[in-house]
């Protein structure tokens, strides 16, 4: 039986073919559209990375990408802590929008597609979601970075402020004392007190300069032979600690740097000693080209022992997280290493410093 004999069958078949072709065409077009949208989404993510997740740069660069998917206009509002970044729509066409407001941060993004058929609506909504998430992530990341920076600056400020106020008070009190010296015996006593203050004062000045990363002079730091056991004994005496120092060893280095390293180490032991009853001991091992200093305390284990040398990380109440970071920074600069490890009955800090260029004592 031919189509001529049965036109109805012919029509049915033709409709079927046309329908199939149409369906294939629609699928193809949808696939092309999906592909285009997916490609633009990927490009936007890459662009965000290229502008280093800077929200302002991202927003100023997105029109190029939005044009590819026939978005004729877009608008946004970002509001945080009294600061607003805003762009309004310039046309009155229908738009789609996505926003969130958690009180502290408000983010809103809208866009106007050139047309909104039922099929494309889903693609535009997906794109809207994508751009909105990029903006929100970038803003949250920036807020967090700024907050962390401010917190760290505040820590440094508190850390230094404590010492600077004490120095100001020291000057005031010295002035008072000098004005009230009565006789020679008084003067001698005063000189004795000043002598006792010399080492801690130098340590403090050294600490402030290092914390603020100030350069006391353009000249390279003076190098000398330094006996590690003498440095440690001086510091232990300053902190009124009971701690045996075994072994001896010298390094050729800048005195200020060595004092800063071991002052932070002994201060760390001292802080712990005030919280717990501790047995302390330090051993100096004069090895092949290196001086190894092992400080043992019988106190509780350190939580997150791998993190303690990171800047601003502290497990102590009100701790600034600067002291141990300073140890690591200076030890590494000298070509050495520093580690901390929990052992069965306490904690061991181990510092190695190259003694290369050591001059004969």
């Amino acid at each position, binding site marked *: 039986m031919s189509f001529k004999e049965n036109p109805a069958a012919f029509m049915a078949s033709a409709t079927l073919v046309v329908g199939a072709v149409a369906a294939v065409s629609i699928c193809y077009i949808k696939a092309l559209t999906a592909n285009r949208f997916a490609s633009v989404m990927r490009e936007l993510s890459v662009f965000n990375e290229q502008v280093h997740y800077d929200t302002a740069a991202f927003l100023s660069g997105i029109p190029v990408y939005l044009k590819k998917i026939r978005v004729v206009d877009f608008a946004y509002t970002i509001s945080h802590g009294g600061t607003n970044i805003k762009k309004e729509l310039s046309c009155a066409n229908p738009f789609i929008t996505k926003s969130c407001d958690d009180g502290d941060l408000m983010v809103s993004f809208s866009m106007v597609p050139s047309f909104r058929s039922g099929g494309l609506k889903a693609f535009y909504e997906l794109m809207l979601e994508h751009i909105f998430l990029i903006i929100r992530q970038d803003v949250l990341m920036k807020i967090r970075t700024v907050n962390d920076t401010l917190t760290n600056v505040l820590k440094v400020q508190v850390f230094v402020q404590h010492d600077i106020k004490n120095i100001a008070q020291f000057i005031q009190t010295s002035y*008072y004392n000098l004005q*009230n010296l009565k006789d020679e015996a*008084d003067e001698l006593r005063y000189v004795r*007190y000043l002598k006792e203050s010399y080492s*801690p*004062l130098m340590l403090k000045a050294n600490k402030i300069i290092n914390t603020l990363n100030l350069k006391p002079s353009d000249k390279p730091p003076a190098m000398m032979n330094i006996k590690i056991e003498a440095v440690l004994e001086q510091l232990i005496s300053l902190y009124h600690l009971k701690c045996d120092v075994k072994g001896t060893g010298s390094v050729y280095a800048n005195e200020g740097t060595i004092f800063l390293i071991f002052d932070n180490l002994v201060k760390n032991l001292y802080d712990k000693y005030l919280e717990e009853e501790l047995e302390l001991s330090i051993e100096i091992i004069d090895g092949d080209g290196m001086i190894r200093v092992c400080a043992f305390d019988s106190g509780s284990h350190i939580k997150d022992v791998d993190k303690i040398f990171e800047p601003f990380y502290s497990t102590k109440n009100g*701790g600034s997280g600067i002291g141990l970071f300073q140890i690591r920074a200076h030890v590494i600069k000298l070509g050495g290493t520093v580690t901390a490890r929990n052992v069965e009955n306490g904690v061991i800090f181990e510092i190695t410093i190259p003694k290369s260029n050591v001059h004969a004592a």
Partner: protein
Amino acid sequence: MIENNEMPNEMPDKATHNVLIVEDDTTLRKQVCFAVERYYTVFEAQNRREAVRVLKNTDISVAILDLGLPPASNTPDEGLKIIDYIMENTETKILVLTGQDSEDVTAATIRRGVFDYIAKPVNMEKVIYAIERAILFRNSEQKISEDGVKQIHVSAKLGDGLQSIREEAERKLIRKVLLENNYNIYKSAKIIGIRRENLYYFIKKFGWKIMRNVV
């Protein structure tokens, strides 16, 4: 803990008073010691542990106290703990001399009953003057005490009712009399004007241990 044995060479009438200087900064502590020991017998401490040791063994008239002490030098916590110890266990007047001058910290010390609060840096004349005033107050309080009047410091929040204030006043007064009388129950009960059984009841209620020979 270091006792400076060199006696003041001025104002001998004041030399009988002991002043404790609690300061972790050795350089500053030495200067303050030098300024104060002209007039008083000076004791030093660089942390809470040393301060409490001195306070347990010596009758300190005035404590000059830094708040930011190790192991938490950046917070007032250690200083506040020393204030709590002093207020609970001694008649020592407290002069806070600190760089921690935020409103919260100041309020926390005032609430605890410190005699004076001085922010660093300050002219030393003011510190010496504050010590003089603190000793004057302490002497006057001791004279009043001889007449059977005890002074206690109670901070009260209006609107919280009277029960908590009453309990706090009871606790501080009884603790003070017990400490002053070396936990002699008979004598303390007589001074306060209550029966011994009642005094035992309070000791149990406030969770104290009878510690004789504790200064």
